[in-house]
């Protein structure tokens, strides 16, 4: 479904990604783990088109000196030259780092904004689906998104991404900054989303929890893929346990 080949990214002279190869097949839950600063967010920004957007918005200035090379294919189509709104329309939707709700809009307006990807007639049904998945959001539908708790904002961010009915949902660090109980809830919900038949690419700090959900995993370190394989075998690997699970 998603095939990434030799993806490299440079911000000015700083190289962030070094020839990353990664694949996500239909129906899988694939996890990308790695230490802080490894380049996980940059990778998701690259495949979702945010890097292209950044380069376009800052074109002609120093901040626009961004080089992205390699190939990204989604459903067989090259997407590495596209902007996020084009990629989202193809069915690859990113739920971004730090959640990024439209703070001044209400919860429901945030979800409806996510539904701008759908034909008008299908929005209502999708909204029902998201409210069923996150009843909490239904209770808060009239509230300003900026007033939600961190956990609720994370549900909103995932719900907003789901509103576009993605074929592949990429989620960047959903559990970061949340209380332990809320984290558990977020992981449960990701498992639910997966049961709904949505393919998921998950980036997480909390590697043990994420790998427990995943089929396969990749480990990124200093912009390079250093390991990959079935999630279960990584979880049992003593070296991986020492380095990434702190055991």
């Amino acid at each position, binding site marked *: 479904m998603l095939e990434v080949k030799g993806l490299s990214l440079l911000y000015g002279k700083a190289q962030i990604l070094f020839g990353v190869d990664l694949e996500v097949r239909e129906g899988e839950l694939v996890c990308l783990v790695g230490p802080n600063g490894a380049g996980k967010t940059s990778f998701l920004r690259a495949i979702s088109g945010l890097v292209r*957007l950044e380069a376009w918005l800052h074109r002609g200035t120093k901040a626009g000196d961004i080089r992205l090379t390699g190939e990204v294919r989604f459903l067989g189509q090259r997407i590495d030259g596209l902007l996020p709104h084009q990629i*989202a329309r193809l069915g690859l939707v990113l739920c971004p780092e730090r959640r990024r*709700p439209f703070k001044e809009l209400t919860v429901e307006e945030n979800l409806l904004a996510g539904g701008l990807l759908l034909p008008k007639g299908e929005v209502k049904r999708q909204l029902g689906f998201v409210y069923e998945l996150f009843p909490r959001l239904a209770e808060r539908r009239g509230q300003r998104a900026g007033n939600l708790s961190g956990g609720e904002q994370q549900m909103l961010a995932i719900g907003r991404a789901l509103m576009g009915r993605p074929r592949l949902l990429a989620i960047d660090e959903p559990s970061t900054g949340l209380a332990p109980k809320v984290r558990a809830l977020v992981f449960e919900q990701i498992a639910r989303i997966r049961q709904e038949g949505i393919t998921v690419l998950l980036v997480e700090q909390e590697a043990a929890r994420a790998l427990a959900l995943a089929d396969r995993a990749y480990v990124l370190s200093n912009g390079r893929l250093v390991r990959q394989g079935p999630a279960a075998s990584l979880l049992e690997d003593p070296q991986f346990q020492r380095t990434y699970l702190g055991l």
Partner: protein
Amino acid sequence: MLSAILVNGLVLSGIYGMLALGFALTYGVARILNLAHTAFYMAAAYGLFFFLGRMGFAPAALLASLLVLLIALAAYKLLLEPLREHEATVLIVTIALALLLQEAVLLLFGAHFRSVPALLPGFVEVFGVRVAQQALLALLFAGVVLLLAWALLKGTRLGLGIRAAAQDQEAAELVGISLSRAGNWAVGLGAFLAALAGLAVAPMATLEPHMWNAPLLVVLAAVVLGGLGSLPGALLGAVVLAFAEVTVVNLVPGGAFLRTAVALLILVLVLVFRPEGLFGTAFAEER
């Protein structure tokens, strides 16, 4: 006295409201601090004056506003959008555009005061105040325009996309909104609102090539007061500025000469004491 302030304040609120909302839209979505915004308003007023000599009011008004829309979109696509990252350059280009329009008006129409005949001549009495019927018409017009703009922003998918893009550019793109398209719409709507404000004042004001200066200061003060980028804030700011101006004009001897000073004073006070404005959280959070 009080009713004079109320009635005139409302009329002026309508005009400033249209101007400030348009300015805030352009800034919020396209990230252009458009110092030519009130020059668009002037261009529409002169456009109306020019076309009125040749046709009826409605087609003249339509042509004038389309002309302004065209100027604004051309300036945006050709000059401003490509330069947007260089903020200082954008400011300079917009001020240059304003001066260009001013010089064009001077060249075409001279420095004399011009006027557009009122659609509704005569006066009526409202709460004991003698008000030009034309002013009431302008108030009604502004009310309808602002309601329609609000309905568009609050009640349509296009409006939702525009408001989302004003909040967070990247998140908006991630839900399938084209920033470039949202920017075009915001610039177009913003300029159109400025043009409508120009059409509304033309029959009440004297037209002269510097008529954009004082309203520019008012609009800047209004949006800074409301919080740069906040649409409700811009409207509220416009109402405050309108009433402050009308109050000073009515209560202070020689107050008519202090109009601009009021806006300037408010602008400075806000910048010193509450630079984020009243609703100024709108988009501090931008990656």
